[in-house]
């Protein structure tokens, strides 16, 4: 060690470093590692005098072999992600590299696949960081959760949550319709006899209250808390949050039910005259008015997944509508009697209907198939689905809440129940809260339903705690990315798919749309010539000169079709997927 060469110096330096003891870890067996640490050092010290360079190599080799280890990761590799979570963020299928693809295409596909997989993993990992958990209600042994009263729940939980169970006694102007704003902060109630009020229901702060001195059929918040629409006896009115009348839309008369499509800024209204109308609230124009020819429309729901409007009719059918088509997209017979109420879940997979035949039915609206049905003795007059899939049904004066309705297992006993006084007129879950609002003849009741609301909101989309500035910012952004009504259809992801309709198919559609074939060759027209050469006979002769060309095309086509018949393969795809009209007139039971 006495030599003063720089190599030796480095080795001493390393020794000094090693003497520093690392803090113990629970997975380390300390004594063993200490010994194993010392041994190679001694060996190094001996050998180091002569061949320094080789020892460095040896040392690194030994490290690789894992004999002398400082610290080992007990959980090597990246943290695993549960398959279920990954599945949640899966968007479409993986892209397959087509056979015989060029190197460049292969590379591009590989890169984009890797990127989307990375994004999927990151999003799935983010679930760990979500701050809130969903609520729940569990009974003791032999205790049905539906026997637990609201007062008991309000007592058992903390004061803030307890105060979410309350009644508003408004017996004068009832029964009430209601609507929660998209952030879930504000509540709008409208009594049949003209009483309209909006309330910040958590602080119980009354924003405005008025009597419109007319029948109120429905109330609906528009995109922000600053505006709401009220369907009154004759026209549709729009008020601001102070109760000042902003517009009276006389194009929309006798409106019974309304739905607001927040991403399209469309207010869809269904009227007593059988009209389904769309009002673009950002520009104040009527986008579409569709005469449904189905009589009075008083059952309406929207599919939040694809913005298709569902209407229920007295003859037991449910029809699906988009503003782009004068006929319904789909018509399905759901009940033997009239349809009383409808609800669609937020993923756009299930539809729940109830009818005068006192049945409650669950449909898969991707396949338009009934999943299961059950018989409710009193029938359900109002239905509502919460963000986490709880179904509430108003049966007579009782509100019942069902769990696990969406799916294949049949409806059993209710999860919760609550008795009220008076006819129930409106049911709505408050978004991002465990609260069900009930409008009835005697006023309004806010009911606690644990596990109803989505616990974690996305602040860039809907933020209940947003400030004034944030709201303004959000409004500008939302208006900028307003989805055009032309993009409403059964499949909202259609825009990202490759249109693989073959040339023939497109050509056929073009002929249908235009009424003539744009690619058809003009018939040969002989030029008129002077000096008597344009006599009828001469023209005929000239025509005959080129007649064989047309004949040839015709022959080749007919030969082609002959071959097709022989080989049993069709050249034209008879696929009317573009129209996507499926009529299911099927009656279950």
């Amino acid at each position: 060690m006495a030599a003063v060469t720089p190599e030796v110096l480095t080795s001493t330096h390393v020794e000094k470093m090693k003497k520093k003891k690392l803090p113990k870890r629970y997975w380390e067996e300390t004594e063993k590692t200490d010994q194993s640490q010392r041994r190679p050092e001694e060996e190094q010290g001996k050998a180091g005098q002569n061949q320094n360079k080789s020892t460095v190599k040896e040392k690194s080799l030994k490290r690789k072999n894992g004999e002398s280890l400082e610290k080992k990761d007990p959980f090597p590799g990246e943290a695993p992600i549960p398959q279920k979570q990954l599945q949640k963020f899966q968007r479409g299928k993986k892209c397959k590299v087509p056979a015989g693809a060029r190197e460049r295409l292969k590379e591009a596909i590989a890169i984009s696949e890797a990127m989307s997989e990375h994004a999927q993993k990151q999003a799935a990992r983010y679930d760990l960081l979500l701050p809130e958990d969903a609520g729940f209600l569990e009974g003791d042994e032999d205790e049905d959760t539906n026997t637990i009263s609201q007062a008991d729940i309000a007592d058992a939980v903390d004061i803030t949550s307890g105060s979410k169970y309350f009644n508003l006694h408004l017996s004068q102007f009832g029964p009430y319709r209601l609507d929660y704003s998209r952030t879930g902060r504000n509540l709008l109630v409208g009594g049949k006899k003209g009483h309209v009020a909006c309330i910040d229901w958590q602080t119980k702060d009354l924003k405005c209250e008025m009597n419109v001195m007319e029948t109120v059929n429905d109330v609906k918040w528009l995109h922000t808390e600053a505006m709401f629409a009220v369907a009154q006896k004759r026209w549709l009115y729009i008020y601001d949050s102070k109760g000042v009348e902003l517009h009276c839309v006389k194009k929309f008369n006798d409106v019974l039910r309304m739905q607001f499509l927040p991403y399209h800024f469309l207010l869809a209204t269904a009227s007593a005259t059988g009209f389904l109308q769309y009002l673009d609230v950002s520009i104040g124009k009527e986008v579409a008015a569709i005469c449904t020819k189905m009589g009075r429309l008083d059952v309406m729901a929207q599919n939040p997944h694809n913005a298709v409007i569902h209407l229920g009719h007295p003859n037991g059918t449910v029809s699906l509508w988009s503003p782009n088509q004068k006929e319904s997209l789909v018509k399905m017979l759901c009940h033997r009697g009239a349809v009383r109420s409808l609800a669609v879940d937020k993923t756009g997979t299930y539809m729940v209907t109830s009818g005068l035949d006192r049945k409650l039915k669950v449909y898969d609206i991707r396949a338009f198939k009934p999943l299961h049905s059950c018989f409710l003795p009193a029938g359900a007059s109002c239905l509502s689905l919460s963000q986490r899939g709880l179904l509430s049904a108003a049966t007579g004066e009782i509100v019942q809440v069902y769990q696990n309705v969406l799916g294949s297992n049949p409806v059993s006993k209710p999860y919760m129940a609550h008795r009220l006084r008076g006819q129930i007129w409106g049911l709505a879950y408050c978004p991002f809260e465990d609260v069900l609002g009930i409008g009835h003849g005697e006023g309004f009741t806010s009911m606690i339903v644990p596990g109803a609301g989505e616990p974690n909101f996305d602040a860039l989309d809907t933020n209940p705690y947003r400030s004034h500035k944030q709201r303004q910012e959000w409004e500008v952004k939302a208006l900028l990315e307003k989805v055009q009504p032309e993009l409403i259809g059964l499949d909202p992801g259609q825009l990202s798919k490759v249109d693989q309709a073959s040339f023939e198919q497109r050509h056929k559609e073009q002929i249908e749309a235009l009424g003539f074939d744009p690619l058809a060759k003009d018939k040969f027209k002989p030029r008129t010539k002077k000096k008597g050469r344009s006599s009828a006979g001469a023209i005929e002769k000239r025509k005959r000169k080129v007649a064989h060309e047309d004949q040839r095309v015709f022959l080749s086509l007919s030969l082609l079709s002959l071959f097709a018949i022989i080989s049993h393969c069709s050249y034209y795809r008879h696929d009317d997927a573009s129209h996507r009209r499926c009529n299911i007139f099927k009656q279950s039971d």
Partner: protein
Amino acid sequence: MKVKVLCRNPDDYVRETTRDIQRVPRNYDPTLHPFEVPREYTRALNATKLERVFAKPFVASLDGHRDGISCITKHAKSLSTIISGACDGEVKVWNLPRQECLRTVQAHEGFVRGICSRFCGTSFFTVGDDKTIKQWNWEAPGYGVREEPINTILGKAVFTGIDHHQREGTFVTCGQTVDIWDEQRSSPIRSFSWGVDSFSCVRYNPVETELLASCASDRSVVLYDTRESAPLRKVIMQLRSNTLCWNPMEAYYFTCANEDYNLYTYDIRHLDVPVTVHMDHVSAVLDVDYSPTGREFVSASFDKTIRIFPKDKGHSREVYHTKRMQHVICVRWSADNKYVLSGSDEMNIRLWKANASEKLGLLSAREKAATHYNKKLIEKFQHHPQVRRIARHRHLPGDILKQKRELREMREAQRRKEQNVRKHSKPGSVPLLTEKEKHVVAVVE
């Protein structure tokens, strides 16, 4: 009974003080974000529209010359300095950020035909119609001292172009022959000629530095190796090439600006067919210059426009024009890849942004993120008809539009005629030529 009800503490979601930033808790659950695709499409459409709204490429005009600009050169070392030569023999040195002329030299009698900067950035060379090559100091002389060239060489014939070697003290001129000069000598070290009377442009290869390419008036592009005594090979085209430029990154490609309104990118290893034919101009192309990244090049044309082409695309991605800009004689891409300079007949040098909608100056991190996001969106939805229509639209002056239509009609007529000839000839006697094959007459070794 066990019960838990959702209850959020507002303190977790609201900022503590007004000086804090707002809290934005996220939840990426796809069911909370419906209409992903239509919303993204709307964003892409907006991004495309905004890109067109912000497309204001014109930055500045440098005026001061008293005749049409005949050539522009960048300083070898300094980004902010350029030199321009005019048709009256005047040479001006410009400072780009201040947009002012630093120095004016009456360099030649008649045209200044070519300027090139020495690689070290200490001096520059000019050639002119007065058959002289002059070397000038980059530094301006002191006050009251006359502008004198460091060195003057009197040649036998008119020089039409000049280029300097990348590392050594040699330079090349073209005129009736292609001459290679040593800076220390007054006669050329070597002269090349291949049976033609004049050359219009000569350029050193930026990577393989002994390689040269020149455009000759007999419609050919000739390649030379300075270490050899004879030219390497030449490709003869149907019409004359005016200038050429090497791709600085892939230096086996060069692009030449042709009289037949097109530009041709050649691979020197396969001269028989150009790699790409770039068509969009409606008049002769006079100058071409590559961007320093080698991904794009800019071309100047007699049709009063300049166009920017991606190196491997047949059509331009951008066209710049103004009402006052006349025939554009010369064009250069700045060394920082951000600007394009064009010199035109009406005595002005114009400074353009290379990316028309780019925001100049420092960008904040959010601005950068937004521009990246928008770029990606446009790329993702580029094939949707609405997006493509907006992204592709460029306003063209009426007469250029008219000429474009006329040209299209002519090409269509030509194609039709050829088809008819083929139809009525013996099969195989009129071969089907692709657009690339059409323009090459021969390759001579």
